[in-house]
């Protein structure tokens, strides 16, 4: 077998303790190869970090976890940012970019057409990332609730499309949509 046994890095992090990152104890910046870095004062620099929302639905703007990916691929949480606004503008921007990278969700702003085609639901929509057409299975597990009034749709490739609030759609769009996604 070809597996090389890597001695895992020992990180100065206690995984059983919650740690909130604040601007006075850490710095968020870009490092080598434009990878996101976090420098925790009196601890070390973590290079190759990504941000993830831990309550993406419940508290979308808060509780952002910064996760360090070690050279061996092992992921360790560096800490949690409770309020992003506390951080300097530059850091906020970096975190936002990292989040955008991770959440490839297209927000549907307009539904042009919904219909059945080959047993799929075929959508023609306008999203924040441009117009898009997609097929989804007409199955319950392919459209999830998002918050109180939203829905997340998964197309045949498992790409995600979000309607943040169904009531924001026009009456016709809403009726068309609910004719198929009635749950």
């Amino acid at each position, binding site marked *: 077998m070809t*597996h090389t*046994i890597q001695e895992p890095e020992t990180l100065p992090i206690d995984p059983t303790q919650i740690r909130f990152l604040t601007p006075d104890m850490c710095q968020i910046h870009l490092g*080598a*190869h434009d990878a996101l870095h976090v420098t925790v004062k009196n601890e070390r620099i973590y290079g190759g970090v990504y941000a993830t929302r831990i309550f*993406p639905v419940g508290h979308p703007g808060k509780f952002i976890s910064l996760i360090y*990916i070690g050279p061996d691929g092992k992921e360790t949480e560096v800490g949690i940012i409770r309020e992003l606004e506390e951080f300097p503008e530059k850091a906020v921007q970096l975190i936002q970019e990292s989040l955008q990278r*991770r959440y*490839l969700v297209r927000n549907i702003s307009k539904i042009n057409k919904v219909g059945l085609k080959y047993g799929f639901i075929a959508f023609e929509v306008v999203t924040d990332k441009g117009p898009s057409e997609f097929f989804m299975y007409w199955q319950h597990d392919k459209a999830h609730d998002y918050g109180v009034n939203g829905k997340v749709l998964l197309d045949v*490739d498992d790409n995600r499309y979000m309607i943040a609030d169904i009531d924001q759609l026009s009456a016709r769009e809403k009726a068309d949509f609910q004719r198929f996604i009635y749950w």
Partner: protein
Amino acid sequence: MSVAPSQLLNRQIPEELAVMLRRRGVEPSQAWLCVETDLNLAGQFERVFLLVFERRLIVAGMAWGDQSRLIRIDLPRDNITQVRTRGGVGGGFLEAVVSGIAVDFMTFSNGLADTFAKVARKLNDWCENKPVSVGIEDDYNPRKCPVCGMTLQFPGDVCRRCAKQGAVLWRVIKLMKPYSAKATLMMLFVLFGIALSLVPPKLTQYLIDKVLTPVLSDDGAARSDAIKWLIMLVAALLGVYVLGMVVTMIRGLLSSFVGTQISFDMRARVFDHITKLGISYHDRYSPGQLMTRISGDTAALRGFVDQLTSGFLAQLITVVAVGVIMFSLSWKLTLYTLAPAPLVIASAVFFYARVRPRYSRIWDAQSKLSGVLSTILSGIRVVKAFGQELHERNRFTGSSEHLQNSERNVEYAVWKFTPAMGLLFQLGSIIVWFVGGKDVLDSQLTLGELIAFLGYLGMFYAPLGTLTQLTTWLTSFLTAAQRTFEILDTRPDVDSSENAKSVEAQGAITFKNVTFGYNRHEPILRDVSFKIKPGEHIGIVGKSGCGKTTLVNLISRFYDTDRGQVLIDGEEIRNLNVDDLRRSIGVVLQEPFLFRGTISANITYGQHNATPEQIITSAKAANAHDFIARLPLGYDTYIGERGAGLSGGERQRISIARALLFDPKVLILDEATSNVDTESEKLIQDALVRITSGRTTIAIAHRLSTLKNCDRIFVMDRGSIIEHGSHEELMEQKGLYYRLVKIQTELSSEPSIDVLTAEDEEEKEKNAKKRKTKS
């Protein structure tokens, strides 16, 4: 331009970019790998290219305008140590380790996940300086339809785009085929019944024209004639009524027979199919949802037969027949009668479009309610333990209210629509009264004809009224039927191939470069290879979540591998009959599941004809006999859902006994003794050693002492086997296993596992001495 030899080598890059590259001294046509993705790292749609050369890797984007940002990444090979994919939400990344730091190279949407998984593998080989090439064979993707390229739900699924689906109604009618003789007879009786019901108004006509009118307007001469007519008419009416009764009775019996039979057949088919569907299907659907489908939706088929015989079909035929008679009585009046019809049809069509989605919502609310109920009830212990009765009541009330609202939503609409339709018809009959009355006064129509016409009019309108509900019924019926067929159309993902071989396994297990993940981005098992000889005892250790259970799931073929092969006795398991395969493997699942029933029924679950001696033998080996014998009803003790009434360890021991009784060639113990105290564990261990000799055994355990006696131990870490060997060999290696042992012995405050064993033996010796001295 020439056609690309493979998706992974599509060198048709924009000219602009080619120019840029040449300026940097690289020739695009020299790239051995060239792929495109649809997203940039900011998550915006953009064409981004990855070009890999012999010793250099370039990522370049095609954002319009900004020339300076064309080249995103340009790295020599030697700086890159590893390349892998990582899943995001709705997409994934190609990530590389560059000088020890994880760097995102590219993003891709989920449609390209399979492609990039391949890219990552190729790049890894490239980093390690292994020979790599790209060719047409890389384009083969079992998750895409070979004809149209549509993504399939799982490899081998039928492509919905290419497969034609029969109309639902036609498929339902075809269900009656096995009972076609009875169904035809039933329909004949329906027709006969309708014909009979047409007679009485005609008799009324004769009563008035031949009996009453002549008598009222004339002298005594007509009277005797009239009496003769009267007697004849009464006899005819009596005959019609009696015959009608007989016909209704027979029709009812037949329809009940056919109806119940069809729903029985359908239940059986759906049940068979659901149990055949793979574990991955059951991962997706909750038992509550499936329950509604098996019991509720198939009942709707029963309704279909009722509708044929006494419902809408019968009504429709009545309407046509009555219409024909009315036409022969007076075509003029019939036309007046039909005046409101276009309006009725138009509003019915409109109503249909409106109400259909609301019907689906009722069904959804019902299945959600049963989902909530089954979750709450099966978790009732947790609910009570946390005192959450009130909270759960609110949750239940919420779902229940949702159902109430959805039902009201439909029924309110129906109750607004139906009476309005009724009024339209009544308008028609008002016209008939006026026009018909005038015709009689003008002697264009006899009184008897008008009365008969009015009688038929009632028979015409009544079913038309219900026919407006046809749409509502048809909708709810078609939705139910559609859902049933949806299940039947789902192909089991793990299916025995046509020429599946039946086997009597010897117990050799081989994994060849197996990669598997529950979703496409993140392989849970990565390139796992090993060979297990028949009769060998293997232990598997590793951190929680590292893929141990997943690995043994693949042996039972609960899932199919994404890449690589699993072989039993040298034969790939895809070529083996699934039932045979599972019959040769006994599994003690990590979460022991016991069915509602007696203990003995649970132990004999896979071996129903076991003798009591066999049951006791396996229970003894599982160290379960003693506690079972102490129960008042012994092996006949009835246990509740999920083994309620037994302790966790007792449940585990029963499920061990079940697996042992099954007498498999391969025994898989997934944390089988984790809930059992150390002393009984030891006993079970010893028994297992005895029983499992000659059988291939794979035991997963967190308590490492359990695995000391294994021939070999596999140490897993994040989806790979990183160490293997006997306990002693692994201790010498001073790798992960050594560290785990150290931690466990520290926790138990013993210097080492060997000391533990040594002490064990000392104690035994002492005891033995004691016994000797006593005797």
